[in-house]
């Protein structure tokens, strides 16, 4: 079970997520900050639903009640050269 990777970008396992919930993480933001799940290149696009389902299950909430983690720009990784050019 511990070898089951949930966040592929940051290689976070199901066991690590469960440990963070046991340590007291109760929201998607806290879970992300404590484990890095959703902090990688895809910013949680791949794993967010799995993480939400796990959090809902472990905290006995309905999945619909779990609020997603905060999203921020950029939507996709963006090379710095494009961002500095845009300024001119």
């Amino acid at each position: 079970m511990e070898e089951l990777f949930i966040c592929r970008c940051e290689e976070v396992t199901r066991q690590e997520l469960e440990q963070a919930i046991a340590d007291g993480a109760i929201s998607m933001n806290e879970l992300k900050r404590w484990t890095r799940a959703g902090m990688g290149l895809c910013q949680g696009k791949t794993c967010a639903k799995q993480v939400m389902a796990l959090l809902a299950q472990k905290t006995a909430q309905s999945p619909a009640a779990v609020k997603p983690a905060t999203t921020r720009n950029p939507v996709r990784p963006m090379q710095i050269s494009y961002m500095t050019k845009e300024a001119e």
Partner: protein
Amino acid sequence: MEKQWDAIIIGGGIIGLACAYYLTDAGQSVLLLEKGDLGQGASTSCDDMIFLQSKKPGILLTIALESLEMYRRLEQDLPASIEFESRGGMVLIESESQMGHMQDFVRQQKALNLDVELLTKEQARKMAPLVSKHVLGSTYSPMDSQVNPLQVMRGFVKAAASKGLEIRRHCGVKALDNPAPYHWKVTADDGKVYESRFVINACGAWAAQVGELTGLELPIKPKRGQILVTESVPAFGQTNFWSADYIVMKLNPDFAKERSALMNDLGIGLSMSQAQSGNYFLGGTREFAGFDKTVDRTALHLILKEAVRFFPALEKVNIIRTFSGFRPAAADGKPFIGPVASQPGMYIAAGHEGDGIALAPITGYAISRMITGQPLPYDFSELSPARLGI
């Protein structure tokens, strides 16, 4: 009768959690109230540096050095790896006038036992081979350090919870009553009343609003700090980096004339630190923008242009995230750590601006010692609210 707590901490950022950790460690019963998620104001939207070289010689440098030693111990004591590391720091110098100011500053810091030196252009390039050729030299301190604030908070929560800390999240405070000295009634947003002997205002940029509940006028304002995060990349050098121009300007306001008005309004100074995950934090701004948490394209572009000027190879690196946090800026640039003389039992632990991560352990420890009536390792009167008549 409702339980009476020893202390109620208002604010669940790194400062409030540090207070909770050291108070529960001293055997106090503690309730912590946080109006949102833990650390949502600033402590989770910041970089990871314990940057000693920016500290003016004086009480702030003294307690920052102490806090650094405390982090070393916390790496052992906390039930989470806090990713503490002394990677060192370089302040990159671009002009002769910056060089002169930095020489003076380094001399003063050395006198206070900060291990710091000036590097020649060649020495600097040896430590940071990718730095731009126009850089004239740098400072270097092996003591500049970093820590993962998210893991520090996790460690504080877990350790303090095992000693009885209770946390209410999404629980703001709407009234604070003080029927007798050392008797506080804290009314939460949901109408519930909690009682304690001590109250600690650890609300960061919101400290003034909570202060108002008891008629205090705390001169603390939110300063927005915008930061970009890169993808995980190999290191650009052995240390973390800062540009000298912002530090020189802080020391000598006249120097602002050498920068553009826009750079000064946004308070832009390059900082570049690499987390253990390999991502670089590129910062940052220090601007008065109220509680507006948006990031602003102009500021992000200016930060990136600074970063690319110093490290041209950054051009090909991807940005994966941008964010901002509210640095709680005190009117005189120093945090408030201490009691409110006219309101027995009320303590302030707020106003750390950009030093909240660096100073969290010493702040929590000092507040715990004050509340339990134990002697302090340093004279904190310079940081007492009383310095401004509060």
